């Protein structure tokens, strides 16, 4: 249980960073932390006490494997995180070029 809670705390720290910080890079960092927390949560769900990695060995039978599905899903999720980070960093670099700052309170041509 404590593992789950700590994982959620990590999620909330990321959320706080995204909602409250006024710097583009900090917001990207916050998104990264959220993504870490979700990935970690997935793997925590699949963990089995004294389990073994889901890879078959040549010479012995492995009986108590951890759940392989979350690992497969998280692999996909990590890639998604990387893709989003790369795209947002590209946008951020362009914004820096146009506005000369990373501070979103100074980037306010749109009123939304």
């Amino acid at each position, binding site marked *: 249980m404590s593992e789950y809670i700590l994982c959620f705390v990590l*999620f909330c720290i990321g959320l706080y960073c*995204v909602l409250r910080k006024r710097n*583009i890079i900090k917001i990207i960092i916050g*998104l990264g932390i959220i993504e870490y927390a979700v990935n970690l949560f997935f793997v925590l769900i699949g963990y089995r006490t004294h389990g073994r990695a889901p890879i078959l060995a040549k010479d012995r039978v492995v009986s108590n494997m951890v759940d392989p599905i979350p690992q497969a899903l998280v692999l996909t999720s990590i890639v998604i995180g990387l*893709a989003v980070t790369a795209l*947002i960093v590209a*946008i951020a670099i362009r914004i820096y070029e146009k506005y000369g700052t990373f501070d979103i309170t100074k980037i306010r041509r749109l009123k*939304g």
Partner: protein
Amino acid sequence: MILPFFVIIPLGTAFLISLLGKKIKNFSDLLANLGTLSLLILSLYSIPLVATHKILVYKVGGWIPPIGICMVLDGLTSFMLVTVNLVSFLVTLYSVNYMERYTDKYRFYTLFMLMLAGMNGIIITGDLFNLFVFLEIASIASYALVAFGTEAEELEASFKYAVMGSVASSFVLLGIALLYGYTSTLNMADIALSLSSKPAGMMVSFVAVLFLAGFGLKTALVPFHAWLPDAHPSAPAPISAMLSGVFIKTLGVYALCRVFFNILTVSSQLLFVLIVLGMISMVVGAFLAIAQDDIKRMFAYSSISQIGYIIFALGIGTPLAFFGALFHLFNHAVFKSLLFLNSGAIEYSTNTRNLKRLGGLNRSLPVTGYTSLLGSMAISGIPPLGGFWSKLIIIIAAIQAGYFVSATVAILVSILTLAYYLKFLKFTFSGKINEAKQNIREVPGLMKLSMIFLGIICVISGLLIVPLFKPFLQSAVNVLLQGQGYKDLVFGAIK
């Protein structure tokens, strides 16, 4: 089986366009249009399939669900496929000329087809994690497309949208993780089966709240709407049409419907939350729309307001309300894409979209003028256009269910809608023509063609409630109504 082709065709075209688009002239135009046309034909072909089989399940890789991923074709799927692919075909037709104004047109088509692949993937999938993957494909493509013009405002809007969208995706993924931990499966029907054998508890409501936050952000319901009025106007007009017309409906409304009504059994409190959110969106969107001078921003706020109608109707939860919601979804997809394409045409010929600097365009842009008139009349609910019937059904459903106040609000918002569309028409098309805009010409033929098509659909979409065409909509409504029956149908079809 046709189902995998809804993903294979757009993906294949996207990869080919990115490989060859730069080298061969006009190749990307041709291939993209062929791709969307074939998708439209396939999606129309899915209607008789659903009518005969009721539900079809395709097992990807030959693995039986829940071991493998399955694709499901039922009434709702077919309805959404027709809506999405109809709009996307007309939009690609329009882009052929419109996107001449931008550089690197082939990249536009690549991203467009990827976004389309994502949306089709979301619609046809029967697996929750797969839904998330395709949701991300569509979202990432749309983040990039919003910034396609690479002006400062567009980048800023895109950044805002990307951050909000990523947070929404994280909420959805967290919800999926919790559901997986709780039920130990990912197949939607299997999750429904597993949940039905467990006692109702906090878990399901927590997951429902997470999904509501995630999909609500993608739908731009009012507390989460801040990104939409920036992102939709910043995109090139064809993309605005796609985003407002079908994107928020696929990623938001469809996914929400599927998850809430077919997988989780949603409590009545949560449905009431939907009603409240829908009503707030309706009112706030309409009031903010009146104050706008930028045509596209006005339309974007209007999208929030109209999505409010759909969510409101879904929250009521009676058969008639579902019917109204889906009917309005289809109508809104048609007329909002028409209006955004019109705004693109206005911008194309006059280089501005500020209402204050326009006027008297009706003489020089007759096609745009008349189709905008049709679109505006349809969205504000003038009989006998499609929009009138869908709003009428929603209001009748609200009265039947006893929500008198909400029904009154819905009528008032409808009048407000008429007011701001009249403002749009008055400032743009009637009155004295601006001196500097004397010698503007009508937009190229393909753009006209796609606007005329959408205008015609606007007029005849009211026919969807006559008995001949009603089964198309009714089968989609039945999917929502059967609720938990979804899992039995899917498992029945596997065997």
